[in-house]
Each structure stands twice: as structure tokens, then as C-alpha cells.
């Protein structure tokens, strides 16, 4: 109808119609417009289908069977992953990983509302056998060929209306940022393959007793960490630690470290205060081992919501840090983060975080630390995640760069996750490691593409 109207207006003899009265012309236009509207409305209404829903077939038998909810569940995930490395250095070139992994998760709910949860992951990387185990360092084989790891194992429940407890191996996330750790200090990380570890496996649980006490909008969370474990770093001789010398073992600690979080949650904003006396995760060389002396940590984190923007900030102060090159002196460091998250584009999340770590009373000798330690170090992280095809396809991009000018190395990772069917999904992605500092120059030719397929049950 619109096309007809356009043809009508384009015809040569339309000028004759200008002799018509204005009212007639407007009336004609009104009639044409109402016809157009009526047609588009009818077209739109035809879009409803009257076919019976498919769900009725699915839904009715469920209610008829009156399935009683079980008080336990066992779920799992089976994953096959292949990684292809662009590295020129054998044996870490070409296909560098062919990993099969199984995650099992068990949950039991008790009648009194308490819940026991545990999960464990086992993996085996067949590439070491295929390419010849003799080509790899002993440390790498020990760390990366196979592993069985107990992750969570805790009992949780409410002791009263205002008091919860959670006892056992668990992950407690402090802070607001998803990309840079400032106040998130309680759990060590699995850094053995930087940029390649799934976020659910990244934090390593530690055994602790955690209590949450609630008063109004506030939550008081005292904790006692009874298991002292430290981040897993790339083993010597592996692609991410070419140094053939074995990394010293960590000293073992059996003490209890206290931690406290106080958080308030309000409409449009929230705030947390943190305090902890914990073992420094990085540590320093001492008598052939890695020592992790206790440090005092105080911090805060804030979220402020403004329209489609979420402003995040974190601040942490550490007191009592020791470094390998200057062991007779304790250092203080203050870390700060500002972050923005934008949610104004449908099905898309964009975030940018920037952090600075400043060492007080800096000593020039720290420049010679094994891990380059500057007076001020900067880190930037930019992330975009978008869902397509009703979230069957998820596209993600993350770039993490160090240096005030973003010129001291880092990595970028882009990956797609596709839901092939219910419970079956595939990932394909690429990781690019960028040089610019001693730390990243050593691993900058480890760029790789990876793909995996997972089945959850």
C-alpha cells in the first residue's frame, strides 16, 4: 500500500490533483494511511499461532509422576581440550595439549537445612605420552601431565535466623573486580597455564571456618583459615617457565590465619571492609625454599550503580611484605583499583579496570627481584562479552596489559562458546601473549589456539 502511494505521488498527472481542495486531499491521505495501518495490524496479529504448546507433552508427565525432590545430587562435566601452540620451541610447539578432564560435584541436603557439597576434578594430558615423556622436564610432568584435585568440600547451614556457618574447603571472593585482584586475597590461584584456565577452576579453595552474622543491611563475616596453600605457578621447563632450574618448594605452615569482612548492601550501592593477617602469596626465597611470611591486610571495596553504569573501586594496604633481595626489611604496599562496567547494550557487558600497586619506601634493589618489582606497577583489563542467538553463542574478549602506558606486556584472549545441545557445548579461542617486560618476553611466543567440547550431566 505504501508502494502504491509512492507510485501515485510519482505519476506525472498528480499535479492536476492539486486543484482538489485541501480537505479532500487530506481525507484521501487519511484513508490510505488507515488502510496501511489496518493491513499491518492484521499482518501482525497473524503472527500468533494456535498450535498447542510442545511443553504440555513435557510438563504433564512430570506432574503426574509426582516426582519427589531428591535430597542429593550428583552432577559432572566431561571435557576434551586440544591446544595448538605457535611456539617454535619443541616440545611445546604444534599440538601442545590434548587434555581429558572430569569434574564431579556431589551435594547433599539434610532435613535441618544444612548442606554438604564437594567436588573434585581429575585430568590427564595425553600429549606427553604421544610426543614422548622424555622430552619434558620432571617438574612439568609432575604438575601438568595428570592431576586429581579436591576442590570444594564444605558443610554449610544456618545456626539461627541471623547466623550462617560454612566449614571446610571453600572459595571466598573478596572485592568487586572480575579481572584484577586487589582485595581478593583469600584463595590462591592456578597460574600454571596463564590465560588458559577456566574461571571456575582458577581460584583454589582453602579450608576455613566462616561465619556470617546479619544485622539489617549489614553482614559481619569472621573467618579462620586453617589451610595455608599458595598459588600454583608454571613448573620449570614448561612453556611458561623456560628456566630449567626447579622452582623451590613452598615452606609449609600449619597456623591459623584470621580474616574479617564487614559488608553493607543498599539500594544502588554497596560497600565492604576487609582485614586479614594472611601469608603473602608471592613470597620470597629463603634457605632454598619459598617463604610466605604473614602480612597484615586492610581493604575496602565499593560498588555504585548509576543508570547502565556500575562503578567499582577497591583499595588494599599490605604491611609486612618481604622480598628475596632485601630480607631484613619489611615493606608496605598500597593497591588501588577503579573499574567501570557498562550494561547499556542489550546482551552485552563491557568492563574496564585499572589498578596501581605502589610500594612504600621503595628500594632500588627490588628492581633485581626474580619477578620484576617496580615502585609503581599498573595493570589494565578490558573485557567485552556478548550473547547471540538467545545465548547459544557467547563471544568474549579480554585483554590484560601491564604498565602505565600499557607497554609492559600482558595477554589478550578471544573465545567463542557455543551450546551445541542441552548440556553439550564447545569453546574455540585464541590467546596472544605480548612481550614488553622480562616477565612477558619469556613467554610471548606461546600464542595458542584452543578448542574444547564439554558434556555436562
Amino acid at each position: 500500500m505504501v508502494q502504491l502511494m509512492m507510485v501515485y505521488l510519482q505519476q506525472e498527472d498528480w499535479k492536476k490533483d492539486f486543484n482538489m481542495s485541501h480537505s479532500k486531499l487530506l481525507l484521501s491521505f487519511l484513508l490510505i494511511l488507515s488502510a496501511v495501518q489496518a493491513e499491518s495490524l492484521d499482518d501482525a496479529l497473524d503472527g500468533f499461532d494456535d498450535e498447542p504448546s510442545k511443553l504440555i507433552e513435557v510438563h504433564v508427565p512430570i506432574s503426574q509422576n509426582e516426582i519427589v525432590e531428591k535430597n542429593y545430587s550428583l552432577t559432572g562435566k566431561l571435557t576434551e581440550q586440544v591446544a595448538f601452540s605457535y611456539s617454535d620451541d619443541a616440545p611445546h610447539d604444534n599440538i601442545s595439549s590434548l587434555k581429558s578432564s572430569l569434574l564431579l560435584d556431589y551435594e547433599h541436603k539434610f532435613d535441618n537445612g544444612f548442606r554438604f557439597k564437594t567436588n573434585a576434578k581429575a585430568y590427564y594430558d595425553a600429549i606427553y605420552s604421544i610426543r614422548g615423556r622424555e622430552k619434558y622436564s620432571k617438574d612439568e610432568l609432575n604438575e601438568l601431565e595428570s592431576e586429581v584435585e579436591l576442590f570444594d568440600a564444605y558443610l554449610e547451614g544456618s545456626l539461627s535466623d541471623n547466623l550462617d556457618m560454612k566449614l571446610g574447603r571453600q572459595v571466598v571472593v573478596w572485592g568487586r573486580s572480575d579481572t584484577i585482584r586487589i582485595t581478593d586475597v583469600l584463595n590462591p590461584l592456578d597460574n600454571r597455564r596463564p590465560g588458559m584456565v577456566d574461571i571456575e577452576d582458577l581460584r583454589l579453595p582453602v579450608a576455613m571456618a566462616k561465619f556470617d552474622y546479619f544485622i539489617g543491611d549489614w553482614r559481619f563475616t569472621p573467618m579462620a583459615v586453617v589451610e595455608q596453600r599458595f598459588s600454583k605457578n608454571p613448573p620449570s621447563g614448561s612453556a611458561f617457565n623456560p628456566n630449567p632450574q626447579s622452582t623451590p618448594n613452598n615452606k609449609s605452615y600449619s597456623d591459623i590465619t584470621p580474616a574479617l569482612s564487614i559488608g553493607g548492601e543498599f539500594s544502588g550501592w554497596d560497600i565492604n571492609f576487609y582485614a586479614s593477617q594472611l601469608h603473602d602469596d608471592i613470597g620470597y626465597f629463603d634457605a632454598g625454599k619459598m617463604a610466605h611470611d604473614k602480612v597484615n591486610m586492610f581493604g575496602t571495596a565499593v560498588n555504585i550503580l548509576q543508570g547502565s553504569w556500575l562503578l567499582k573501586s577497591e583499595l588494599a594496604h599490605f604491611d609486612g611484605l618481604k622480598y628475596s633481595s632485601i630480607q631484613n626489611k619489611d615493606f608496605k604496599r598500597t593497591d588501588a583499583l577503579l573499574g567501570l562496567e557498562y550494561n547499556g547494550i542489550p546482551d552485552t557487558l563491557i568492563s574496564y579496570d585499572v589498578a596501581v600497586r605502589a610500594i612504600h619506601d621503595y628500594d632500588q634493589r627490588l628492581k633485581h627481584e626474580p619477578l620484576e618489582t617496580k615502585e609503581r606497577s599498573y595493570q589494565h583489563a578490558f573485557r567485552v562479552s556478548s550473547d547471540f542467538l538467545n545465548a547459544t553463542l557467547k563471544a568474549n574478549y579480554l585483554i590484560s596489559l601491564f604498565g602505565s602506558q600499557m607497554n609492559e606486556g600482558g595477554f589478550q584472549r578471544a573465545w567463542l562458546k557455543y551450546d551445541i545441545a542441552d548440556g553439550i557445548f564447545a569453546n574455540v579461542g585464541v590467546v596472544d601473549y605480548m612481550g614488553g617486560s622480562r616477565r612477558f618476553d619469556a613467554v610471548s611466543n606461546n600464542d595458542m589456539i584452543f578448542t574444547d567440547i564439554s558434556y555436562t550431566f
Partner: protein
Amino acid sequence: MKAKKILFLLGVGATLLTSNLMADDATARTIMEKVDARDDGQTLEQDMLMLLIDKNGKERTRDLKSYGKDKGEDSHRTMFFKSPADVKNTAFLTYDYDDASKDDDQWLYLPALKKVKRIPSTDKSSSFMGSDFSYFDMTDRDLEDYDFKLIKETKVRGHDAWMIESTPRNQKVIDESGYEKTIAIVRKDNYVVVRAINFLTNGKKKYLDLKKIHEENGVWLVDEMTMTTKKGTRTLHKTVLSFSNVTLNGSIDDGVFTTRRLEKGL
């Protein structure tokens, strides 16, 4: 010159006509006020089965538990995903404020991150967990944000109904919802919107169809509804939501609507 003048008048006429179409209609507004004021219970607890069907017929299912509670003019809602395993224990909490000048509060618990995340709520046009329902579809509309027009009287599944067009009064509402306008079909006997066509800003349409409803103690409850996204006549994606184990006006502890509960799960 004369031709230009007439074209100008034609333009003015079309503008007036369009303005008239968008003006508020008292009858339509009264109907929509009754829709808004309809008793939907003080609390509602129910199981939800979500079936997601893509254009090739590939199906995915989501099993949820939902709790809702009126808090004066505001409302609180919590949803827990029970299955499949890859989304199990994901939970969503929203505080829907009646005051239009105040942004809703929303939180999402993602088991992979092991923490509760606050979500900006201004843009509500994003898909809710991959379904054809958006976050906006899960919250109440503020009538003051819209102009209403009674298009005609009609029948749906044998019931007399009104067909009412609602047009956002400003771009902010369009941006927030993603809808340029909505045509709702309201049953005359119970003031339930049983069908609606949402016109998206990208030219697509979303068809809401309440396939099955029933009355319980004077409150109309949905047993099954679909939301179908179409481009022209082509179906792009469809979501079927079915409800069971419904408890209306039961006692629901306020603790269900807290981030504490999101972390603990069902």
C-alpha cells in the same frame, strides 16, 4: 509554489494525524489501570519449566524455582535455576521499585564466579537467560510512561477482549525496554493481558501468548505461556514457560529475597 504549499500542508496534516494516534485515550487508560490494579496475590511461589526452541527446532530446557512478594508498592522476586547442570545454582534477585525515578536493584549469583554480582538495571531489553523474555518482561510497567489507545474490540479463544496499543512517552522508556510500542489484548471478564505483540526497535516482533490460565481465590494465574520472536512471518526463536506447584499468598520469608539466599541456593 502552490505545490510546495500543499505538500507542506500535507506534512502538517500527517504530523497532526500521527500526534493524534499517539495521544492518550481515556477509555484505554482506564482499562489498563484495571489491568494494573488486578489482584495478582501478595506472594507467589512456583516451579517454572522453560523450553527454548530455536528456528531449527533445537530445544533446550531450564528448570527454575521462583518466589515473588509484594512489598507495599514495590515487589521482590527471586529465581533459582535447578537444571541443567551447567546453569544449576545460578540465581537472580530483583527489587522492582514502583518509583519510576529510582533504578531497580538486581543481583545475579553465578556459581562459576562464586560471588553475587550487582547488575545495572537501566537497560532491561537483554534476554533473560537466553529466553525470548527480557528482564523488562519480568517487571511491572509504569502506566505513566505510556500513551494508550483502544484499537478495537475483539475475541480471543472465545472470550471478549479489548485490543489496546501502548506507546512509550519518551525515548528513555524505548531504550530501556527495547519496545517501540505494544499491542495488548485484554480479556474483558478478568482484565488479564492474554496476548501481546511487542514491536522491537530492530524491526522484530515478540508475541506473548498466555495459552492456559486459571483462577484461584479470585486471582488469575498463568499455567502456560509462550513468547515468540519473529521477523516478518519467520519465527526466529520461541520460549515456552510452564508453571506448576503454585502456592498463592503463602508465607514467604523475607530472607528469600536477599543476596545471602542467592549464595546459599535452594
